[in-house]
């Protein structure tokens, strides 16, 4: 489950730290205490930045780093497709063997395929992605942008 790619992202996270944003959310995984504070910044529908701070296991930390690497600079529609594909992979209970098409979409994130076999860890991998989705809808809906939520 601990692919080299995951360990790399864990040890050298991309884009970590909180920077300016249009919306901020704070998500917690109550079963293991993993936490993330995440901000998104949009330029129209282009993702200008995803910045974050958090504590947690290597899976949740690496996943946030991969998210940053994958989504920054992307159009919202494409980012959503990536998010959905990642969700699908993580909920597959180890039954999806990523094909080339999936690898094209997910890039480094395919390394998490093995995590999907471990129900206790799937939530860790999804933490930042759920936070991103939530922050995005707050940023784009405008309203409630500052509200803290707990999932």
């Amino acid at each position: 489950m601990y692919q080299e790619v995951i360990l790399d992202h864990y040890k050298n996270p991309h884009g970590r730290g909180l920077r300016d944003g249009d919306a901020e959310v704070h998500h917690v995984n109550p079963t293991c205490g993993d936490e993330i504070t995440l901000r998104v910044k949009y330029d129209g529908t282009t993702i200008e930045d995803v910045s974050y701070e958090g504590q947690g296991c290597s899976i949740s930390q690496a996943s946030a780093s991969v998210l940053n690497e994958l989504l920054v600079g992307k159009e919202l529609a494409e980012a959503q497709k990536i998010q959905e594909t990642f969700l699908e992979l993580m909920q597959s209970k180890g039954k999806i063997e990523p094909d080339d098409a999936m690898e094209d979409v997910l890039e480094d994130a395919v390394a998490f395929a093995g995590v999907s076999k471990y129900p206790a860890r799937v939530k860790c991998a999804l933490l930042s992605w759920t936070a991103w989705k939530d922050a995005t809808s707050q940023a784009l809906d405008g309203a409630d942008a500052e509200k803290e939520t707990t999932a």
Partner: protein
Amino acid sequence: MTQLPGLLDTEAIRKDFPILDRVLHDGKKLVYLDNAATSQTPRQVIDVLDEYYEQHNANVHRGVHVLAEEATALYEGARDKVAEFINAPSRDEVIFTKNASESLNLVANMLGWADEPYRVDHETEIVITEMEHHSNIVPWQLLAQRTGAKLKWFGLTDDGRLDLSNIDEVITEKTKIVSFVLVSNILGTQNPVEAIVRRAQEVGALVCVDASQAAPHMPLDVQALQADFVAFTGHKMCGPTGIGVLWGRQELLEDLPPFLGGGEMIETVSMHSSTYAPAPHKFEAGTPPIAQAVGLGAAIDYLSSIGMDKILAHEHALTEYAVKRLLEVPDLRIIGPTTAEERGAAISFTLGDIHPHDVGQVLDEQGIAVRVGHHCARPVCLRYGIPATTRASFYLYSTPAEIDALVDGLEHVRNFFG
């Protein structure tokens, strides 16, 4: 051998139940006719229990090691099996308890501590029936005492059916909950769910169905029932002791407060306050009966492999035969419906003025196990002016020959005390 249409291949089925080979009192073969009290356990279930303890035992949830993951998958897999067995819209509506009694107490307590619109208090009414098992009476008596709510009930007709003639007076705008038994464990009566549900829905009352004697014996579809809660118990359906089920409608389980507090049922805890996990976990405090849930799952696999419709047909044929044969016994009076229509396979009776304890004891000397007493439904005995009954009850492994043995045994009882 008596041949009846619709019977299962009991010769094959009986091989699955080791206990049916038992020999009692120097050579009497066990004739087990006490299935309404508890059913016997097939090898397939015993094996799964063994395998659980020998290979996979661990505490569930939150574990990252292999055994914990296996135990969790088995436990949650059992929930899937139960959900499918009762056609629940969602697996998250299936709560594991220790028995049907806990399930029913859980409903009563949720409503006692609920906010509006569910809250049972001194301005509201609870409706049950006179044929309930004590486990569907006492929780409501306690709730009524503790909240000041009024407890009302449907009476019984002389032939052992619910008297619904005054349904509009019994279930009123004040009624918050109607809780009744689908199949009576003492009378055998199968109750008309639809009429009761219709009236309850009219006044906005919740409906709780005690399916303890139904789930083991017939296809059960909680969506078709249109109830809000359905309770049943594992040990009457080839499962282990120590496991029960409460099914509840998802939005109710979301809204209603927890009952038992502790590990597993929380989202987050601080000394000052706690929040609760979503259902079903909200209602499962502490280490659950893991092996027992897994065993119940195996029992469901077993029953499903035979087919609940086939089991129903088998028991119906046996009941028809048993009613006919029993009515041939002089001085025997069936307490409950005297035909096999709209009834389950538990038949209560009296035998002249021979006390049921004596009937049961002399039958036992012949290896025939029946239950005697008030069957945890004492109001029914009061209603029919009898201290107790003798009850024979059948299951998928019961045979016409066992009914013949019972009838012969009863003749012997009559001669003995005659």
